[in-house]
């Protein structure tokens, strides 16, 4: 009975929602002040949902239909500078169209939250998922994380604002989710009460950094070589501090909503006694985990690691976790043409993170699921086979394997 009463207070209802709709509910709960919209598939459904939420009076916010992504991102950046909590989002080439604004939002240290519904970059046109769009901000001073269910998506809008707006951090946040597979797939979602959200998420306060006649400051004057390096260093420090704030935010979240997250940065599945694991971002964890179960039935010691936080990268935690395994297969739903070993972006990050270890696991790379191509359970079993082989064969002919491509 007590447990049920507590649940009632934390959640107002349960609803069948897509990833985008779940984010829209979270934006309502976060009492966002300014939203700027511009259509592009697949993220755009969040703006459809928000426009209706606002039309029905469920959220009091300014809703601006911008003339381009560049304006869309600049609008929320400047709304944030006057201390408004702001939300926007995009996908694929739309994200790239506003890239200049994305860079300055980070260097101006304005904690706007963006939804990135991952989409393949043109040309040729494709609506399906690919992670290169969101990855483009990875070195710019952004918080960047991937979620795998609508429930997680909803919760990470709240967690995202909590971290981004913390004065030790003040970085914009990109909440990435796989186009179609998550943006448009429906799950049952528990929607928190505004009271519970208020207990977790404090009001946004830029303090003496806000632009207001009572606080006449100049933001981002020309500095040239005199000060840029010191400012870059401040961004660097903020990104480093963010790791600690992330941990604190999840503890606080668990404190209000129960033990939702055992680890902030990544989730391990059946890894306790595993010798071979796959690691990936986003919804590829679904076929990955099913493949783990099937191989476990045959007695194979395999597991799956779903990486959630990409920026800041959980260097220490991931290094420690992966050091327990003999082989790690890194799944990239992105490309980095011409990069070392011609692998994907995640490969380089993971391999670099493991480099200081004396006894490193064997690391291989799988590039798959580009442009929204389905990644099947059998595909994931093949990935495990490649990773397992790498344990004994350190001279693999094909260090990088493309799975699911017609050759």
């Amino acid at each position, binding site marked *: 009975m007590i447990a049920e009463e507590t649940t009632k207070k934390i959640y107002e209802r349960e609803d069948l929602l897509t990833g985008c709709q779940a984010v829209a509910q979270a934006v309502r709960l976060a009492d966002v002040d300014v939203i700027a919209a511009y259509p592009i598939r697949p993220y755009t459904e969040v703006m459809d949902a928000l426009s209706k939420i606002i039309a029905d009076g469920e959220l009091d916010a300014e809703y601006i239909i911008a003339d381009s992504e560049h304006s869309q991102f600049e609008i929320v950046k400047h709304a944030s500078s006057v201390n408004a909590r702001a939300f926007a989002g995009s996908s694929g080439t739309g994200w790239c169209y506003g890239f200049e604004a994305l860079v300055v939002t980070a260097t101006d240290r304005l904690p706007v939250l963006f939804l990135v519904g991952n989409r393949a970059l043109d040309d040729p046109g494709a609506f399906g998922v690919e992670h290169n769009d969101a990855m483009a901000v990875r070195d710019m001073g952004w918080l960047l994380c991937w979620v795998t269910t609508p429930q997680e998506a909803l919760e990470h809008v709240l967690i995202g604002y909590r971290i981004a707006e913390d004065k030790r951090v003040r970085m914009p946040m990109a909440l990435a989710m796989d186009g179609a597979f998550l943006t448009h797939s429906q799950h049952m979602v528990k929607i928190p009460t505004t009271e519970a959200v208020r207990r977790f998420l404090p009001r946004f306060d830029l303090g003496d950094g806000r632009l*207001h006649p009572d606080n006449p400051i*100049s933001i981002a004057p020309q500095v040239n070589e005199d000060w840029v390096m010191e400012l870059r260093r401040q961004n660097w420090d903020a990104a480093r501090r963010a790791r600690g704030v992330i941990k604190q935010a999840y503890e606080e979240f668990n404190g209000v909503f129960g033990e939702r997250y055992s680890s902030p940065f990544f989730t391990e599945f059946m890894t306790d006694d595993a010798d071979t694991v796959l690691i990936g971002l986003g919804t590829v964890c679904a076929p990955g985990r099913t493949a783990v179960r099937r191989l476990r039935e045959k007695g194979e010691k395999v597991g799956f690691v779903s990486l959630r936080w990409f920026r800041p990268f959980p260097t220490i935690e991931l290094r420690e976790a992966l050091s327990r395994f003999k082989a790690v297969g890194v799944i990239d739903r992105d490309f980095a043409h011409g990069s070392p070993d011609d692998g994907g972006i995640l490969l380089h990050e993971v391999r670099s993170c493991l480099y200081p270890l004396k006894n490193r696991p064997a690391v291989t790379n799988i590039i798959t699921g580009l442009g929204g191509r389905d990644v099947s359970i059998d595909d994931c079993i093949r990935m495990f086979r490649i990773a397992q082989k790498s344990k004994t064969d350190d001279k693999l002919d094909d260090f990088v394997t493309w799975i699911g491509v017609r050759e």
Partner: protein
Amino acid sequence: MASDVVVYDKIKGVHKIPLEEFYTSGHRTCQGCESATTMRGFIKAAGPRTIVTGSTGCMYVANTSYMTTPWIVPWMHTQLGAGGSSAVGMAAGLRALKRKGKIKDEPINAIAFCGDLGGGDMGIGGISGALQTDYDLLIIMYDNESAANTDIQATGLSTYGAQTTFTPPGSKHRIMQRRWKKNVAGMLAVGHPTCKYVATACATFPPMDYMNKVRKALAVGGPTFIHTYDPCPKGWDFHPRYSHEIGEMGIRSGLYPLFEIIEGQVIYTYDCRKSAKGRTPVKDFLVAQGRFAHLIPEDFEYIQKRVDEMWEEWEIPGIAPIKGILKG
């Protein structure tokens, strides 16, 4: 929302201009810089309850250096093409915070400035978007007819025939700037029927005109736009002592039409039609500047013909290049 708007009095003479400065020392603009005068004037007219964004351009790079900012009011840099969108962001943020009781409900001006390259070329879509909203904001496009901070490159607003670093006269092509000056204020007025105020101005001529236009724009409410003509001694190649005179000559020649459009009503602040004040020869204005030194008589004739057409044949002189509907 009229209650959001500061109420202003018309400045009735040079001696009535507010003494208090909100754009002061610290900037590094050139001697004779008329764009600096444009900056100083708008913030004098608007007063301290104002937030300003400045797009990248000479009025950013030369104007607002770290530790020596001239701005007494809160100011923020915005990107080259973000004049319109930065104003919308500020105004929307302020409106939401006031309505939701998160900050005191009081009138605060949101002003964005951008240059002719940032506003007239790159940022024209963002300005158009801003003028479609109902936010109280003012966008000032200061037009010195070039990318003045990057070495004087031609923009879509450079006068026909002007020499710039992108349009040097050569042995094969005498004229490289073959584009006619983009009619930004006219285009924005015609394209945005709900925008209540669009004007052109020159910071120093006629006296008081510019500052009162800024006040009118801020007092009328909603999104508003002012295009200023700012002679640039460095880019236009004339002695800095003559900046005001060059501006006045440009306006008297009819090349730079001065007008305001208040809720659809056109008022010429300097009427260059033959039936009104008339025009001085465009050549007098052009030969006063080094950037037109390579022009020959037929170029002057061509420019003069276009200016004459603008004032005597356009259906809305100086504003909309449509001919012959009413006469037919």
